[in-house]
């Protein structure tokens, strides 16, 4: 598996994501936001957490219009795999690769803690290592993680089995407790919680490991 991790000014989970991919056996290439091309043979693109462009205007909005994001969008459009975590989820929502948007947390506070997630579906490459109904502990660290989409979109996500994770105890006001969603072809995952921060015993939890392990060896290049 060859993973590309995108780096924006203000990304701060790029290295953590690279380490998690490498631990699962991937070769990792770091890609700068001004790059106009993904490396050849990339199986999956990781859009990491952080505060790209200082969260100016809206979280992820400026990053979503950077040169590399045109490539990420094209990669997703031709059926490529991509995972956006935290700010990366905000970026993918802003590009339109994933539906909806991430609003300010309902309690207006930045929340940094480990939360329980329900694994809603195991019918995608990211959650194959879990069983539907599993509850896993994964950290969150965000100010704008309150998932919003209109009722019709939420219903479609649920009907099409595209809700990957929900919170066991909704921390941020997200509609229908949604913590992570999938694209229509289930090859793009966006999630606010940080599986890469629960991927090594030294992190204090390893519930995120199964996500990265499931990816290795299962991906076909786009």
């Amino acid at each position: 598996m060859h993973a590309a991790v995108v780096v924006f000014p203000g990304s701060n989970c790029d290295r953590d994501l690279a380490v998690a991919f490498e631990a699962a056996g991937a070769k990792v290439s770091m890609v700068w936001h001004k790059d106009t091309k993904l490396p050849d043979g990339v199986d999956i693109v990781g859009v990491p957490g952080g505060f790209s462009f200082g969260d100016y205007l809206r979280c992820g909005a400026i990053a979503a219009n950077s040169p590399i994001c045109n490539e990420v969008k094209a990669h997703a459009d031709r059926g490529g795999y991509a995972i956006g975590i935290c700010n990366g989820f905000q970026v993918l929502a802003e590009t339109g690769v994933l539906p909806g948007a991430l609003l300010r947390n309902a309690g207006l506070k930045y929340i940094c803690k480990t939360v329980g997630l329900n694994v809603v579906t195991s019918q995608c490459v990211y959650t194959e290592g879990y069983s539907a109904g599993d509850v896993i502990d994964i950290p969150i660290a965000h100010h704008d993680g309150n998932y919003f989409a209109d009722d019709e979109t939420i219903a479609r996500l649920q009907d099409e089995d595209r809700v990957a994770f929900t919170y066991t105890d909704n921390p941020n006001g997200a509609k229908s407790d949604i913590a992570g969603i999938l694209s229509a072809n289930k090859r793009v995952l966006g999630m606010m919680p940080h599986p890469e921060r629960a991927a090594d015993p030294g992190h204090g939890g390893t519930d995120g490991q199964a996500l990265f392990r499931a990816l290795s060896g299962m991906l076909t290049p786009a």
Partner: protein
Amino acid sequence: MKARVHVMLKNGVLDPQGEAVRHALGAMGFDGVNGVRQGKVIELDLADGTTEATVNEMCEKLLSNMVIESYTVEMS
């Protein structure tokens, strides 16, 4: 020439910041504030001849997120 863009959350999208401001006003003794919605104003200093259509395009591509926000443009 200048353009002033107003970006507001759409009706039906919860505005927790506006709600917090409404609570604060109530706590300060300002009665009768039934609702507060908080948006943003973006001022653009534009080359002469820039059309409103171009500003609309800027709004739709970057300045607002049409999933959650609406915008209005004032050209001057």
